[in-house]
């Protein structure tokens, strides 16, 4: 919402400039700022009276006007149809500067001298009206400077209102806040309505079929209306409020809307088939065309205003095309009503209609301003549109909505705020906001009906706090000793994971949990996707069931940007459908691709391979004391057959890993192998112990022996290691595979594996004599079991 500063000045006394006003309102919960003026500045424009209008000799559409501009009389060429003798208009003199930067110079058009320009409102930046020159009130002195005279130097105030404050969606509502802060009162418009004898009640009967949906419906009838342009003072208020002026009838309803916050609607009375208003809810699938020429299909929640034969408006939201005020309208039925917020909210959301009216009714208008607003609009129609107001307001209000009464306990206020505000201070604050107070043994507060947000004592606490000033409330810090916090195992574990992988040189990535489920299906993933009903795009249409697609996406993006050293991990949530419900889990993904940054002279250029990934995983398990990770061959559709595993700790299945399949890589246009592991963190946590127990350092020295054997290529290293450990007779403490070799000197189909064996006793220093038999036993076991040949 936006309003001109001057309108607020009219409604309430205060001494602040726009900046200070905004600061004070903002600090009281009505967020606003003033960063620009209502009108862009212009200069050199004066009130000019047209003395003579002559037809231009060369052009039919132009006329030559002689204009009295006070000190002198000048001639100008003008194309506006409303240039007429006696009209007082805006005249830009030679040297004038217009808002768009134009500087007025004397010109000669087809032999006619033009010493200045008669301006439209649009040329002066005062409205969108460009087809005619501005029409000034006759009272404005000829030759006076218009910028000064019309007091156009006005700041614009822009509000950012919270949804709980519909009462602030009007000039009077804001003025009420200002009055409370400034210690003054709101000066509401004072008017005396002249009514003709004819009774409105005889011209219209109002019936509300559903008082729940529409608790109040009032109307006035005004005849003899002349639809025309509104005067400048009215247009300028609307212009500042960001509303486009249309004609005097519509403009008046909009002015009252912006002044009182009460939506009004003017119907062309002649377009009613019956002298009657029937407010009812719509029938299922009933059709209605609003005045923006859109046809809507309605439901039973929607409220219709009808003339008993046809619907004429979608109640509280928008009028109908069939009863709209037009230039020939003579007699108007002016509606002022109060609708149930819930009905309006449902209708507006379902039909996706935004209107000033709907927004206010949805958030809660004031049922008890309905008559005043209607009367004021009728008054303005009589003053500005020549209307004659029929006697009486026809007001259907079956059950009057009374102000809510709430008990206020000053002690509770001070307890919640930690303040020592006195009861009289509290009462003053509530009074200043126009709340009623009945003070006896207890303080009872009557909440005005324009404040639907205040329904409980705690809401009054906020009213008191915000006017008292949040900045005056002290600060205290309760000692934390009474409640020591503890970190959960999960929290600590995840921290350890980050630390471990970070130390191993991996970069943490973070991706959105939404993916394209079609892509997932193409990758052969199980169709357990949890789809969104209202996704942003097909790319983000479902919650991910694993972290694989996101990882490939990040890899692809980096490779495209020629970043080829990719060792990445992500910790994030996944979810999938399970039976009638779903399961959400936190997973860890590790992705390795490319090669070490070869731009460093000392770095190996070798591309990362499966064992780089496995090494990270082993160091991860070791660092987090999780035990040994076991790989079991298992095909996963998005991993390459043969390099695709399930991962276990003992019998616990914890995840999967391997090399991304060519199909997966193709889908992301990746040409470099990607190695991938995904672990379910929830499965790892039970395996993790926070507590570390130190292992004593060996007392006695170790003895080392190397052994190299040649075996069939089909024999896997871990089988040899198992045999080695199994034959170590309690003195073999460690065996490391330090070389794998195939090629020259090694027979086809064979490979050479070399191990370093460490022997040690906890009881004494081992001698060669003690190690030798064990070492020989290991050799013979390898020879027996694997037909291994010693390599010499």
């Amino acid at each position, binding site marked *: 919402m936006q309003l001109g500063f001057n309108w607020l000045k009219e409604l309430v006394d205060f001494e602040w400039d726009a900046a200070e006003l905004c600061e004070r309102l903002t600090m009281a919960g009505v967020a606003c700022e003033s960063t620009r003026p209502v009108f862009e500045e212009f200069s050199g424009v004066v009130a000019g009276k047209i003395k003579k209008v002559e037809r231009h000799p060369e052009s039919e559409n132009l006329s030559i006007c002689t204009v009295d501009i006070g000190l002198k009389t000048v001639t100008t060429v003008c194309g506006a149809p409303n240039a007429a003798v006696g009209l007082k208009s805006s005249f830009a003199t030679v040297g004038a500067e217009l808002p768009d930067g134009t500087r007025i110079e004397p010109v000669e058009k087809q032999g006619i001298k033009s010493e200045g320009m008669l301006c439209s409102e649009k040329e002066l930046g005062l409205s969108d009206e460009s087809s005619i020159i501005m029409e000034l009130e006759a009272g404005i002195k000829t030759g006076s400077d218009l910028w000064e005279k019309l007091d156009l130097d006005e700041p614009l105030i822009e509000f950012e209102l919270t949804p709980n404050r519909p009462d602030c969606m009007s000039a009077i509502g804001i003025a009420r806040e200002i009055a409370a802060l400034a210690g003054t009162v709101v000066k509401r418009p004072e008017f005396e309505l002249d009514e003709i004898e004819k009774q409105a009640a005889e011209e219209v009967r109002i019936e509300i079929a559903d008082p729940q949906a529409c608790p109040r419906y009032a109307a006035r009838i005004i005849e003899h209306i002349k639809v025309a342009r509104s005067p400048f003072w009215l247009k300028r208020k609307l212009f500042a409020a960001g509303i486009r002026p249309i004609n005097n009838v519509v403009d008046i309803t909009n002015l009252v809307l912006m002044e009182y916050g009460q939506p009004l609607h003017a119907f062309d009375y002649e377009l009613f088939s019956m002298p009657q208003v029937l407010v009812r809810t719509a029938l299922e699938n009933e059709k209605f065309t609003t005045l923006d020429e859109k046809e809507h299909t309605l439901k039973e929640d929607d409220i219709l205003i009808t003339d008993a034969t046809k619907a004429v408006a979608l109640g509280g939201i928008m009028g109908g095309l069939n009863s709209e005020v037009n230039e020939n309208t003579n007699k108007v039925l002016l509606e002022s009503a109060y609708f149930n917020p819930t009905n309006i909210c449902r209708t507006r959301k379902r039909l996706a209609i935004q209107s000033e009216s709907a927004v206010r009714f949805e958030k809660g208008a004031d049922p008890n301003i309905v008559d005043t607003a209607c009367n004021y609009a009728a008054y303005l129609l009589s003053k500005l549109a020549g209307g004659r107001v029929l006697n009486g307001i026809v007001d259907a209000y079956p059950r009057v909505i009374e102000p809510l009464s709430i008990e206020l306990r000053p002690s509770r206020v001070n307890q919640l705020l930690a303040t020592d505000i006195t009861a009289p201070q509290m009462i003053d604050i509530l009074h200043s906001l126009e709340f009623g107070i009945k003070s006896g043994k207890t303080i009872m507060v009557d909440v005005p009906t324009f404040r639907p947000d205040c329904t409980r004592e*705690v809401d009054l606490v906020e009213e008191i706090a915000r006017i008292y000033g949040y900045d005056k409330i002290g600060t205290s810090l309760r000692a934390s000793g009474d409640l020591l916090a503890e970190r959960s195992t999960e929290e600590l574990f995840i921290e350890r994971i980050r630390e471990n992988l970070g130390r191993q040189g991996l970069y943490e990535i973070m991706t959105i949990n939404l993916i394209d489920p079609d892509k997932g299906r193409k990758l052969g993933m199980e169709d357990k996707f949890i789809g969104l009903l209202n996704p942003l795009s097909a790319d983000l249409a479902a919650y991910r069931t694993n972290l694989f697609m996101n990882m490939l996406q990040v890899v692809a993006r980096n490779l495209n940007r020629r970043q080829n050293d990719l060792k990445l991990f992500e910790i994030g949530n996944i979810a999938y459908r399970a039976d009638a419900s779903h399961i959400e889990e936190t997973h860890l993904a590790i992705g390795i691709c490319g090669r070490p940054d070869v731009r460093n002279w000392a770095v190996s250029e070798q591309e990362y391979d499966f064992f780089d990934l496995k090494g990270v995983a082993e160091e991860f398990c070791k660092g987090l004391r999780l035990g040994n990770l076991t790989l079991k061959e298992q095909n996963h559709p998005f991993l390459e057959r043969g390099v695709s595993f399930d991962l276990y700790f003992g019998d616990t299945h914890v995840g999967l890993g391997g090399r991304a399949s060519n199909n997966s890589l193709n889908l992301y246009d990746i040409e470099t192998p990607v190695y991938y592991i995904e672990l379910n963190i929830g499965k790892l946590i039970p395996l993790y112990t926070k507590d570390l127990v130190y292992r004593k350092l060996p007392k006695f020295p170790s003895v080392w022996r190397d052994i190299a054997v040649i075996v069939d290529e089909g024999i896997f290293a871990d089988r040899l290691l198992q045999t080695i450990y199994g034959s170590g007779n309690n003195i073999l403490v460690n065996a490391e595979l330090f070389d794998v070799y195939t090629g020259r000197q090694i027979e086809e189909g064979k490979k050479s594996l070399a191990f370093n064996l460490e022997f040690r006793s906890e009881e004494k220093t081992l001698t060669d004599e003690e190690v030798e038999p064990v070492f020989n036993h290991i050799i013979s076991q390898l020879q027996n079991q694997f037909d291994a040949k010693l390599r010499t």
Partner: protein
Amino acid sequence: MDLKQQILEIKENFARAIENIKDSDDLEQVKIEYLGRKSRFNQILKGLKDLGVEEKKEIGRLANLAKQDFQARLDELKSSITASGRTDSKFDYTLPGKRSRLGRTHPIVTTMREISDIFFGMGFGTEIGPEIETDYYNFQALNMPRDHPARDMQDTFYISGDLVLRTHTTPVQVRTLERSKPPARFIAPGRCYRNEAISVRSHAAFHQIDGFFVDRDVSFADLKGVLVAFARSFFGSDVKLKFRPSFFPFTEPSAEVDISCFLCNGKGCALCKRSGWLEILGCGMIDPVVFDYVGYDPEAFTGYAFGIGIERICLLKYGIDDIRLFFENDVRFLEQF
């Protein structure tokens, strides 16, 4: 030529010779030529015996002074040659070092951890909740029934009529209060979603840390106190805070908190859009409606709650101008943190 003249000439030659020294080989050469056994000085000194006593004394003194001077200047030069790198060694220690690349933590995670640590120090435990949340916890129990205007503030991704991607981490507050008893003091960090087009300024996924404290006699002053302590710890001890009344359906009274801009110290700059203030979080006293839902007596217990948007703080703190960078994971971005 008399000996005095010869000494002067040697001195002049020496001065020229040291100009041309480039490395320690040259230096050694000059040293041999001017101070060595076969140097001209030595020849002069050898010839002294043929002179008279006075002359012997005089020339001897001059020659010795010159020798001392030469020695000192050569010593000086020797150390300067080593220090300025004009050595003869082929060891190129300017080659880049062999680094083991360190990993990096995502800046959002770092920021969350820094904030969490501060609250941990003030006695806040940590609770987390699911990202796929029920309408009940995300909205209803937080005083946002269906058809409530406040739901407009949250553009929600729906999974079904009853399941949503959580729009804030505040549902964790309800879940935690439900299963614990006061006093309860926790933070709830996590990821949230908003059905909003992805742009430079906003993303469909974002992170939040919610915090709350429920006990007897918890007041608005306690809320101010804990947030002032947090802000000073995180942004620096001279930061100022401004509490502006605001609205959240689940707190009453509610406030929006601004801090004085840490870039310009409140003077006004591009970061704070000339206002001198930066909006960083929303907070308030927990609404009695929430207590009703979790079964606490609002007369007996009061509490406060706050919610901090992590991306915003991270953008401000590091001067990042595009929120999408956080989810793009360009390694050139990640390696800066």
